[in-house]
């Protein structure tokens, strides 16, 4: 069994959703870790959940990056541990410099909650190992600032290093301007670090783990992490 630490910042609001998906849908172990804690409770996987840490005041993720727990998260990532940032968690990872780039206001300036499709571009991360390359996932988004941006050189490097993990696409997989919900550069929905163990994405896989909620496509992301942990344990 894999243990997922779900970090709780003040203002996180998808912490319980991630916990529920890990524990009650996937049947794995889940532990909440308060942002002032300095112990990751034996985590195999660290989840930075969605929400509005510190109200998203100033900038999304800007204040949360100074939380005491973030130095543990950094150490965990530096040691190669799998870390995933979902929505606000992605924003925190970017602010903290664990991933490259930034998230701007959505192109239309409005908060947007809906299902979108993303294509899995890379399967060699701990969060996509169980997916098929090019697999299309139907996942919900719910954000006002998900417009991924990085300087052109950075984007080139990310592309060259295959660090773009998820890209917005139409239901059948093709890329188009209308399939890009927020104006993200190169339709980027999620990226990883150089070492590939830290992944951030705007869509919410934890909201797409049960058919009763409209999609189960998010499971593969969390299940990949479980598989990665188990195979690392065996190895």
């Amino acid at each position, binding site marked *: 069994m894999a243990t997922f630490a779900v970090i709780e910042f003040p203002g996180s609001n998808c912490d319980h959703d991630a916990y529920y998906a890990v524990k009650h849908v996937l049947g794995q172990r889940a532990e909440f870790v308060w942002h002032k804690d300095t112990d990751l409770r034996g985590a195999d996987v660290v989840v930075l959940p969605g929400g509005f840490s510190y*109200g998203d005041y100033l900038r999304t993720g800007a204040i949360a990056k100074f939380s005491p727990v973030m130095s543990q998260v950094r150490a965990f990532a530096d040691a190669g541990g799998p870390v995933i940032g979902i929505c606000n968690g992605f924003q925190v990872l970017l602010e903290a410099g664990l991933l490259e780039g930034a998230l701007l206001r959505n192109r239309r300036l409005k908060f947007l909650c809906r299902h979108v499709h993303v294509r899995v571009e890379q399967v060699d991360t701990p969060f996509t190992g169980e997916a098929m390359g090019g697999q299309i996932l139907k996942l919900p988004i719910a954000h006002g600032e998900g417009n991924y941006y990085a300087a052109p050189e950075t984007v080139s490097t990310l592309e060259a290093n295959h660090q773009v993990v998820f890209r917005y696409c139409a239901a059948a997989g093709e890329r188009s301007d209308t399939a890009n919900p927020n104006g993200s550069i190169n339709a980027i929905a999620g990226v990883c670090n150089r070492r590939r163990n830290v992944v951030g994405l705007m869509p919410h896989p934890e909201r797409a783990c049960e058919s009763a909620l409209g999609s189960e496509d998010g499971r593969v992301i969390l299940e990949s992490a479980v598989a990665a942990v188990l195979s690392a344990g065996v190895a």
Partner: protein
Amino acid sequence: MKTRVFVTLKPSVFDPQGRTIVQALGSMGYAAVRDVRQGKYFELDVDTDSEEAARMLATEVADRLLANPVIESYRVEVEE
């Protein structure tokens, strides 16, 4: 001509962002920052050579669109 508009919450209006920033600064060790108020800042590129015309236009625009007069006030500066 480059014109700048500053929009700030009226002093009596509560600024939750400013308060949260002060608290964050406090816990980062910057207790010397006693208060923060967050506002908006606009740089307008106005198609005129007259400082007076730029100021008038920017003021009108600030009044009608950039500031919400119910809770905000604004100030206009023209770059010399």
